[in-house]
């Protein structure tokens, strides 16, 4: 670990990415993500020893395709955007998954639909976990709840992307982006040699086997072969990379399920419920995909309160996981500002009443 600092979320995220060896940042300015681009732009000028390339792209479409190009050469690359830019990048994400290109994509969520608003939201849950690109593809989605965790997951994202040769999404939001918090910055990590990465574009000469990034397929046999291969990789990711934290779920009657910075409000509500004698617990998925099904093991028969800053999107995955929709309740707001713990507590009390 590196030094302890007091830092804004977006900047801490960018610094962690630089220390993880990110050499190419391409992005298009969009609130609330722009500080990440600005940080990289400054680093390119002020820290030449880092060897960073920053490009302000003409569109998010281009930004995502640019990082695909950098990833193809085996480098650690990233972009950061918000929901209205993330959707433009999804053609490239489908392409990167099919072409097995490792890149990190940060989505700093803001309320929608449409142009929406600029502050916090979790309205991109479907977008980051299902994706809008075509075909059957999956991306690991990491959802931090503090600036500290965001710094750690930021570095982890690069490792996972290159481990699986697949894009990895880090889902932040307008709160974490703008929040100043005390954080212990991660140190510099070891970066694998780009030209030695699998299938890296480097020039083949007369003797080396040429490398090719091709996502087109010819005929049923090739469509099946490619998809079966990718699906087996996605299964491997699902088995090995699901992450979560459970808080006081063992004896709980009511288990809250929440993610991202909003979890912090939910934790406060859980503690207040405990003070009132209501046995509340909490599951916090850290990976949104793969969805941490293990977190729900042994919790049959409990009531689940899914808390989200959207119309209720993760609630689908909760219902699928426990295969029972009757015991699942929703507390939701649409974002911009955060609800207070007492509003969630009121919902917990209602469920507790029904258990009496």
């Amino acid at each position: 670990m590196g030094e302890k600092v007091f830092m804004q979320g977006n900047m801490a995220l960018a610094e962690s990415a630089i220390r993880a060896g990110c050499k190419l940042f391409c992005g298009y300015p969009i609130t609330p993500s722009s500080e990440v681009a600005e940080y990289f732009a400054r680093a390119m000028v002020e820290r030449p020893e880092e060897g960073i390339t920053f490009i302000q792209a003409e569109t998010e479409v281009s930004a995502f395709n640019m990082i695909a190009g950098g990833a193809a050469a085996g480098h650690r690359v990233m972009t950061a955007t918000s929901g209205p830019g993330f959707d433009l990048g999804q053609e490239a994400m489908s392409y990167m998954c099919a072409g097995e290109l490792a890149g990190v994509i940060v989505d700093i969520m803001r309320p929608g639909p449409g142009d929406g608003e600029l502050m916090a939201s979790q309205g991109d849950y479907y977008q980051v976990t299902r994706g809008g690109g075509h075909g059957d593809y999956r991306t690991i989605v990491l959802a931090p709840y503090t600036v500290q965790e965001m710094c750690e997951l930021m570095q982890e994202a690069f490792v996972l992307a290159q481990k699986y040769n697949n894009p990895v999404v880090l889902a932040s939001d307008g709160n974490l982006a703008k929040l100043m918090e005390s954080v212990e910055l991660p140190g510099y990590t070891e970066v694998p040699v780009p030209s030695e990465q699998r299938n890296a574009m480097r020039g083949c000469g007369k003797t080396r086997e040429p490398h090719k990034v091709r996502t087109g397929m010819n005929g049923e046999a090739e469509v099946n072969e490619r998809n079966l291969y990718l699906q087996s990789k996605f299964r491997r990711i699902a088995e090995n990379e699901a992450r979560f934290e459970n808080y006081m779920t063992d004896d709980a009657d009511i288990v809250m399920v929440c993610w991202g910075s909003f979890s912090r409000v939910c934790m406060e509500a859980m503690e207040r419920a405990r003070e009132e004698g209501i046995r509340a617990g909490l599951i916090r998925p850290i990976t949104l995909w793969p969805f941490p099904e293990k977190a729900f093991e042994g919790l049959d028969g409990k009531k689940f309160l899914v808390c989200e800053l959207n119309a209720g999107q993760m609630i689908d995955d909760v219902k699928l996981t426990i295969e029972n929709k009757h015991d699942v309740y929703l507390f939701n707001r649409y974002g911009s500002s955060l609800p207070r713990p007492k509003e969630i507590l009121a919902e917990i009390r209602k469920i507790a009443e029904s258990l009496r």
Partner: protein
Amino acid sequence: MKKYIYKKPEVLLDTSSGFCGGCGHGIVTKIIAELIDEMGLQENGIIVWPIGCSCSAHRIFRMDQMIALHGRAPAVATGLKRVEPGKFIIVYQGDGDLVSEGMAEIMHASIRGEKFSVVFLNNAIYGMTGGQVAPTTLIGQYAKTAPAGRSPVNTGYPIGMAETLSHIRGVIYSERVTVTSPARIAAAKKAIRKAFELQLEGKGLSFVEVLSPCPTNWGMSPVKSLEWIEDEMTKEYPLGVFKDTENEVPQ
């Protein structure tokens, strides 16, 4: 003693490209293959192909290659060249790819003066999807989505990319050539060689537009197609050098 007067470029594999008879892609990709051999670009070179008929050319090259999404090749090449400035990057695009879907990408790669070479094959029609109107289709030219011929009222006017890009400062070289005769092919090769040499000097984006026949979608014989380029296409798209920052082009 045996004397070779012709041989297949070493960078080409012994396999079929899949291009139609009379198609210009075969000629242009072979020019590129010859230059890769002659200039020794296989060691350090990467080709970025587009989506369209041209992307099937990846099958015949023994090179590191990427096929970008439709229109995005200049963006992909930007990322590639920026992290690997020592590599030689050839971007190959058709007119549907470069002028329509990827207009933003080629314009901004040009504005940024990205240091790679773009070979742009203009056959005034969509080839792979089967003959729909392109931004480069001539006024009055038949296309499946312009069954009465292209009308400016509905689809506007053809655009000359070699001229358009020549006005952008980041572009250091822009020329339009064609492949209708052995002399024209030799001139096309000279232009592409020049574009490649300028990339090696690392000064900016070098661009060569090639007017190329598509007998299949034009509904003409290969020979008639070549005549049509000379008689009709070159009126809309005059051949010539539109920008050469080393040698000022007389206006």
